């Protein structure tokens, strides 16, 4: 539905916002994005995983292996303080961006 370029520009914001609430593993992140967007946004492993690695290398998120009761061992990603700061920044940028687009195309931002 959406162009790859458009999706690519927002994936970091999507991941950071999902991790703001709680730590999640890679499969869950992809499924949450799909579910919350009502299927409009789908990110497969090749699109999602390199971004996760890049964000971890930047120190925005941190991955740790966790084995919860009754479940398999998985790598859970958690937002770092730096990641939280970047999230706020990206949210502001996104709001400003959408507002600017709307002003140009003449529609109200919901």
């Amino acid at each position, binding site marked *: 539905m959406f162009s790859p370029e458009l999706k690519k520009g927002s994936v970091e914001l999507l991941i950071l916002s999902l991790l703001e609430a709680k730590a999640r593993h*890679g*499969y869950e992140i992809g499924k949450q994005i799909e579910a919350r967007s009502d299927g409009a946004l789908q990110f497969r*492993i*090749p699109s999602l*995983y390199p971004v996760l690695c890049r964000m971890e*290398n930047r120190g925005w998120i941190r991955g740790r292996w966790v084995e919860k009761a009754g479940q398999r061992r998985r*790598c859970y990603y958690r937002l770092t303080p730096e990641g939280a700061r970047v999230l706020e920044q990206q949210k502001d940028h996104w709001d400003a961006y959408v507002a600017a687009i709307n002003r140009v195309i003449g529609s109200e931002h919901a």
Partner: protein
Amino acid sequence: MPDWKEYVRRRLELGDLDPHRENRIVEDLAEQLEDFYGEALEGGAGPEKAAAFARAQVSDWDRLGRELRSVEKSHRLPAADRWRARARARGGLWLLLADLQKDLLHGARTLRRAPGFTLAAVLTLAIGIGAITVTFTYVEAILIRPLPFPDPDRLVMVRERTAEGEVQPAAYANLLEWRREARTFVDLAGMIAQSVNLTGEGEPARLRGGFVSDGFFRVAGVSALHGRLFQPGEDQPGGERVVVLSHPVWTNRFGGDPGLLGRRLELNGEPFTVIGILPEEFSFPIDYAGIWLPMAYVTQDLERAWWNFGRIRPGVDLEQAERELNAMLPGLAARFPELNAEVQQVQLETLHSRLVRRIRPTLWIFLGAVALVLLIASANVAT
């Protein structure tokens, strides 16, 4: 159930990534594929369709690998570390080499940063290594290396212990009786060291002489280089006066002249015929005698020879040989009461042990001290 870890490892090329990081990525992706597989099974798909569904999540592993290699540049190993990672993966001896390489590189980096310290460290270690090398050379030559004779561990010195606990050379008469009767020995012989005057051949000279009993060269396990050695009976007075030369005397004094055999030399004013030349490497028991003469011509009391040797038969140990000689003592005491009045026991000791007995403790202590110095020097450098 599919082995997703192996599946990912075989398809995903991550280059020279830190092994820990590589393992993390492989396992994480494998777990995600496992999740997709489980999702399909829960949806009612069979194992094969569920596996196909999971595999379909990544269609282009090369592209994924390229992107991850690009993203993970900061985790790429330096060249030396890449080699070490590959070596570790091989295991075995490569693991040892990998650890050695790591330690060497670390050491080299540390030394490069501090040239003054490096110089001091190198000098300290050089002195320590030099000292221990020199010391060990002596230890090896004296204490460890076997004597240069055939079966040197079969050569023993024969001595007598008195009732007062003193140790003395064995009585010559006892030696001759043991030689005749003992079954545990190949042969026994005695030697007295005494200087000999050589005249009539150029400059007069005083040579170190070894006066030996019959069987001496047999005990030593040596053959003549030229000519022959003493025959049975030549150690008795009245026979032809014969002499055997050591190799150094033959070459230094007589120019290595092979025509010397059969010539007469004037020794202590008496003519002796040269019958043999010993090999260059012969120096029994130590590098002592320049010429060898029969015991009959020694000019001192023959009650006790300075050195009494025996060669124990193969298959016989030192304790057995010693027991045999001791068993013969009462008979000898009866035959030679004056000689054996004080003798209580016969003692055998390997020739090597006898030669190094005094210097052995000193050498080992010295080696230990030098080793300790090197250890301290190494510890100082390491810390």
